[in-house]
């Protein structure tokens, strides 16, 4: 009964500010199980547990072109749907910067919010002689060809970019990198263990657990401050004299013709959501670090990211 009353109260409260959309949907532009799914599940479960809205969030999937299909679908077919949010990440911004989403650019949708982030890491195998990024950097600079780098994406992907900015900071041309595009973080781990690659480029959440288990050694986290959890002992790249930061934010966008009132309804809802302990718990459970940018602030952030990535891609000869 109390739950019903709360639900009614919440509904009334929400209605007083702005009519809630009838149906809430989070579109994950990929197969189930990946990072986009994780972003949608974070929204669905934390909203459900915090009981901020009466209706559940339905998670749907539309794979294709690492989000390109969904991007075009939302702009073309559902541009004004007030209940639809689509999962995105800094990887989406990177693809937009390289014009890989087709004719539409980053201004074609309404960027809603980022609810958490992961950070880039550089790692070596657990039995590697290198104990710090400094040592590795010095040896790498000496003979880049002796250090094949592996990441979970193609040339131009986030993992490649992390390797490229590492090379660039040491005065090595990213174009000369020996880079193997492997299938995801798991393949990077086996390739490191098997000695097929010497440096692994990946994400803190995935690599942190492996670092703790001693299978690999994370030499640096690419964040501004040290990260909590499994990687708390690992210094940032900045502490080791290399200015490398790679933030992988996870968030959402909405259709371009969503009204200002509907957009604001979501902004208010998410602002309330991120302050709840239920959200904190769900974010932690998904291995995401605190990183919240909502509404106009997020919109500016995405556009700044895209501009910066475009610059990086040009320097690396990708555009």
């Amino acid at each position, binding site marked *: 009964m109390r739950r019903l009353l709360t639900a009614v109260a919440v509904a009334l409260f929400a209605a007083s500010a702005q009519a809630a959309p009838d149906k809430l949907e989070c579109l994950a532009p990929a197969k189930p199980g990946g990072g986009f799914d994780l972003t949608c599940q974070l929204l669905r479960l934390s909203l459900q547990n915090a009981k901020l809205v009466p209706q559940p969030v339905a998670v749907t999937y539309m794979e294709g072109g690492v989000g390109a299909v969904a991007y075009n679908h939302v702009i073309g077919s559902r541009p004004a749907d007030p209940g639809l949010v689509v999962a995105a990440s800094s990887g989406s911004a990177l693809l937009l910067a390289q014009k890989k989403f087709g*004719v539409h650019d980053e201004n074609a949708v309404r960027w809603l919010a980022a609810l958490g982030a992961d950070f880039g890491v550089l790692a070596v195998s657990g039995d590697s002689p290198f104990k710090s990024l400094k040592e590795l950097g010095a040896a790498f600079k000496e003979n880049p060809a002796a250090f094949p780098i592996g990441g979970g994406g193609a040339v131009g992907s986030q993992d490649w970019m992390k390797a490229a900015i590492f090379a660039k900071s040491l005065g090595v041309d990213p174009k000369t990198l020996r880079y193997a*595009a492997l299938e*995801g973080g*798991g393949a990077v781990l086996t390739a490191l263990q098997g000695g097929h690659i010497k440096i692994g480029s990946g994400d803190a959440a995935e690599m942190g657990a492996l670092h703790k*288990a001693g299978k690999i050694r994370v030499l640096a986290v690419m964040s501004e401050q040290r990260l909590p959890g499994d990687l708390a002992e690992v210094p940032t790249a900045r502490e080791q004299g290399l200015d490398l930061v790679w933030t992988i934010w996870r968030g959402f966008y909405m259709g371009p013709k969503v009204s200002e009132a509907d957009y604001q309804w979501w902004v208010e809802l998410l602002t309330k959501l991120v302050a709840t302990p239920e959200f904190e718990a769900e974010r932690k459970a998904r291995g995401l670090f605190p990183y919240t940018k909502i509404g106009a602030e997020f919109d500016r952030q995405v556009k700044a990211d895209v501009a910066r990535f475009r610059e990086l891609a040009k320097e690396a000869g990708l555009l």
Partner: protein
Amino acid sequence: MSLDYLWTGFAVALQWHNLLFGLFGCFLGTVVGALPAIGPINGIALLLPLLYTLGVPPESTMIVLAGIYYGAEYGGRISSILLNVPGDAGAVMTALDGYPMAREGRAAEALALSGIASFIGGLVSVVALTFFGPLFGQLAVGFGPAEYFVLMVFAFATLTSMVGDQPIKTLIAATLGLVLATVGLDPTSGAYRFTFGEPELHDGIEFIILVIGLFSVSEVLMLLERQYAGRLTLLSVGRGLPSLATVRSCIGAMLRGAGIGFVIGVLPGTGASVASAVSYTTEKRISDRNGTFGKGDPRGLAAPEAANNAAAGGAFVPMLTLGVPGSGTTAVMLGALLLYNIQPGPQLFSERPEIAGGLIASMYIGNLLLLILNLPLVQLFVRMILLPNWILLPGVLALAFLAVYSAYASTLSIVITLSIGVFGYVLRKLGFDLAPLILGFVLGKVAETNLRNALAISGGELGIFFSSPIAIVLWLLAAVVVVLPLVLRRRGVLS
């Protein structure tokens, strides 16, 4: 190696609620497997959030999910045999001899035989998983891009067994498969190839779409043509069970298929479809003395069916021991373990025996359940093929489109399916075999990515392909597969 974890596991898996969970998973798996284009990954993705929110304990969740996974490998054969529409990716090769058997009126026999083959494959892989799991995990670490590429060379070498009496057509078909595999995102440079500015083509041509177009749409066209020409004969069902002699003649094929399937399943990045392809070509190489493969040879049915089930078991090895998924479906299951805050790895067997052991024990029980489910139920499925053509043909087509649309939610995918279907029809009328095309497609992607990664690592040096013992052994095997039959033929051993 101590097997204590397994006894703990049986204690967990034999609890009545876990038995029910297992039965439920197996049944659901058979259903999603039998439905074309809906694979185990969809079933698992559907159930995982539900089980998690309902607070089902992790070992029970894993038992259900594993049941769906290998249940689907059983179910996939049903539509392969009855409709020539592979129910899932691993069942493509099953159609090559299974469907001709059904057309000869031996549908019930084919279903029962493949059910037994699935069971043997499943059982062998669970036993191998139990005893050699951690050992095989180490083997996978030795496979870098160079070794994978040589493995693919070996797989292509086995393809020479499919050459038959029209080597040029086989080569052309395999090349077409390779060409189709290049559509979409270039896996290493990130450039888009042959996408014509269409985002829906960014991921390339989906395997399921290719298979449904090539096999089911073109098959409907072939049947229509025969119907129109008045040459269509109604299928008779035949006996319900294969004779003991048939089963005995297939035991070798099943065991070889299971072995090949398990090893390929263990390697990350290669799954049930590669396993069944390699086992089919290998079996054809070994057993096809009279050119009966592709025309309804029970051994051509048994080998790939055992292999795809064994591959499903093998895929658990790297997932449980290294935390590296061996297939898309085990990737989702890995996500499930992480959702419950369980870190896979060699320590999983000692620290959480109820999870590792419970899962493996449930696979023994599940395979038994599936055998029971799949033998008596055969009669039920056989009825499907007795449908008259005016229901069956539109039904198959509707099912194909429904499957494609529900998986990709795009009209372009339907258009591509249709175009591939017409293309497949033309190829068949011209006397091409479609199997090499599928093989070229499946193996081509893996071969290309690993070739280029290996060369990127070595800086263009070809020596990397000969630098490890694994690679050298694979080169030797490939050479044997190509050369040995030539030598034997010259000596008159093989006709």
